[in-house]
């Protein structure tokens, strides 16, 4: 194994930007309790408000709409809990609508809610993983409280038409949530333009710290606290402020906003370079997801007759780190539920590999993969029962 590590698993998590590491390290000493009145507390509070502005600027919302959470998983759970509570309290709108390809933090929340008798519909997607507006419309009605559709998929990169969906959702008087976790820093994201009511994101997906995320909540939309306790975040989310990580996500947001255009180009360039290289050098491959509406940097490929985990481990031996199916499914033998939900053949769904690029990847990385990958696939196919 080379000493060189080619990290192509940026949709799972990213390396923190040097600027973020620097800021977090400095903030480790801002240890005051941001809820306290004394000097240390005030320093922490000021640092937090700065971060709130940085995040708000990135996603185009008001700073007062930013609620810091422990990550996108908590943010997603929080949104569903709001409407669970409204339904418990007797709301006539007692139905939640989402899709079959959401992140597990929504899929599993839905499973739980259904098992407890709540009405949740999961709208199917087309072959490319896209929500069809006409299909979605058939699920919408006066009984719908919340619609939740992710901005871009973590596995295939497929982007949903959030602005159009939101119009349909608001037309029936329901509220709209989008999990924008994978889109941040890769495509322009705007609470205001899209007019969504709730948006989730997670720091470590865009070179910020882990364990910190945001639920953006538009003014005057329903809210119910998920983690009850102290008065932090205006009573919306309890828990002593995680000042260093909040400072970190703020700096990451500022970088993401500044670099958006160049980053987006960079990621798309590497992704396309790899896609073309694979298609040209390896016979019989299937590129998954929507190729027109796709997050830059995500390339999901199925290699029929070669199994995903084997490919992953061979690549790992060559110092290339990728993911099979969704990162969360790793360690399990389940085929990708995202691909299955998109109507992809079960065999293809088993053998998918996700390459996901980040800021620190280079053309050399792609060249290295294009040198190592074809013989691996060839070898596995020769071994395979076909």
């Amino acid at each position, binding site marked *: 194994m080379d000493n060189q590590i080619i990290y192509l698993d940026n949709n799972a998590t990213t390396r923190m930007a040097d600027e973020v590491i620097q800021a977090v390290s*400095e*903030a480790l*000493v801002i240890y005051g309790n941001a809820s306290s009145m004394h*000097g240390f507390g*005030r*320093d922490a509070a*000021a*640092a937090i408000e700065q971060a709130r502005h940085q995040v708000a600027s990135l996603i185009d919302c008001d700073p007062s709409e930013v609620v810091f959470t422990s990550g996108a998983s908590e943010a997603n759970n929080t949104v569903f809990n709001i409407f669970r509570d409204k339904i418990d309290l007797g709301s006539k709108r007692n139905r939640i609508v989402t899709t079959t390809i959401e992140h597990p933090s929504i899929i599993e929340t839905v499973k739980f809610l259904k098992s407890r008798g709540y009405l949740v519909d999961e709208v199917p997607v087309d072959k490319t993983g896209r929500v069809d507006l006409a299909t979605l419309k058939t699920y919408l009605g006066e009984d719908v409280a919340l619609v939740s559709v992710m901005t871009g998929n973590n596995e295939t990169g497929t982007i949903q038409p959030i602005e159009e969906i939101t119009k349909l959702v608001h037309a029936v008087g329901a509220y709209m949530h989008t999990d924008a976790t994978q889109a941040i820093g890769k495509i322009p994201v705007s609470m205001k333009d899209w007019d969504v009511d709730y948006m989730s994101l997670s720091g470590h997906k865009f070179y910020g710290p882990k364990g910190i995320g945001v639920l953006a909540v538009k003014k005057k939309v329903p809210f119910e606290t998920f983690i009850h306790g102290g008065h932090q975040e205006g009573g919306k989310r309890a828990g002593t402020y995680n000042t260093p990580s909040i400072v970190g996500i703020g700096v990451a947001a500022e970088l993401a906003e500044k670099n958006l255009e160049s980053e987006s180009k960079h990621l798309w360039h590497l992704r396309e370079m790899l896609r073309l290289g694979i298609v040209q050098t390896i016979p019989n491959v299937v590129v998954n997801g929507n190729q027109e509406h796709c997050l830059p940097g995500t390339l999901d490929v199925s290699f029929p007759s070669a199994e995903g985990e084997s490919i992953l481990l061979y690549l790992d031996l060559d110092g290339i780190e990728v993911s099979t199916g969704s990162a969360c499914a790793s360690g399990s033998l389940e085929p990708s539920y995202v691909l299955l939900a998109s109507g992809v053949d079960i065999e293809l769904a088993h053998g998918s590999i996700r390459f996901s690029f980040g800021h620190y990847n280079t053309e050399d990385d792609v060249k290295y993969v294009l040198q190592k990958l074809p013989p691996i696939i060839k070898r596995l196919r020769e071994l395979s029962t076909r």
Partner: protein
Amino acid sequence: MNNFMSQWVYTPIVKDHFMNPRNTWREDEHFEADGVGEVGSLACGDQMRVAIKVKDDVISDLRWLTYGCASAIASTSMMSELAIGMTLEEAYRMTPDMITTALGGLPDHKFHCSVLGDKALRAAIDDFLEKQGRDNPFKKTIAKVICECKNVTDIKIEEL
């Protein structure tokens, strides 16, 4: 870290009045008050007492005591500076807004602390007029402010 250093919780004027409160009523001082007013209670967490001297219906001098937070101390101190030299009528019409403005602002949740100061002042004027056996010409024109801070709403403030 230095980027954030360190505005104090309240404005510099609040800080100054908190650190050096003006016209406080020292125990060893022989202040012959013409009127004394008191509002709030220790149980509420804030209590204020204001004593005034009146010459030709002008407040010629004023002393105060407060059990309360920094905003309450600063507000009362500022009130005392504003009130001295005012006619009784001007003083009676002093609003919490005038006090907070003079202080360079108070956080929203501290607004009631400034309400207490001018209420105590009015109570002192009431007391003065009563002791003099005079009619109170101001009372009718001014809506009553309720003591409990929690009941001090914007509308009630505007009614002043």
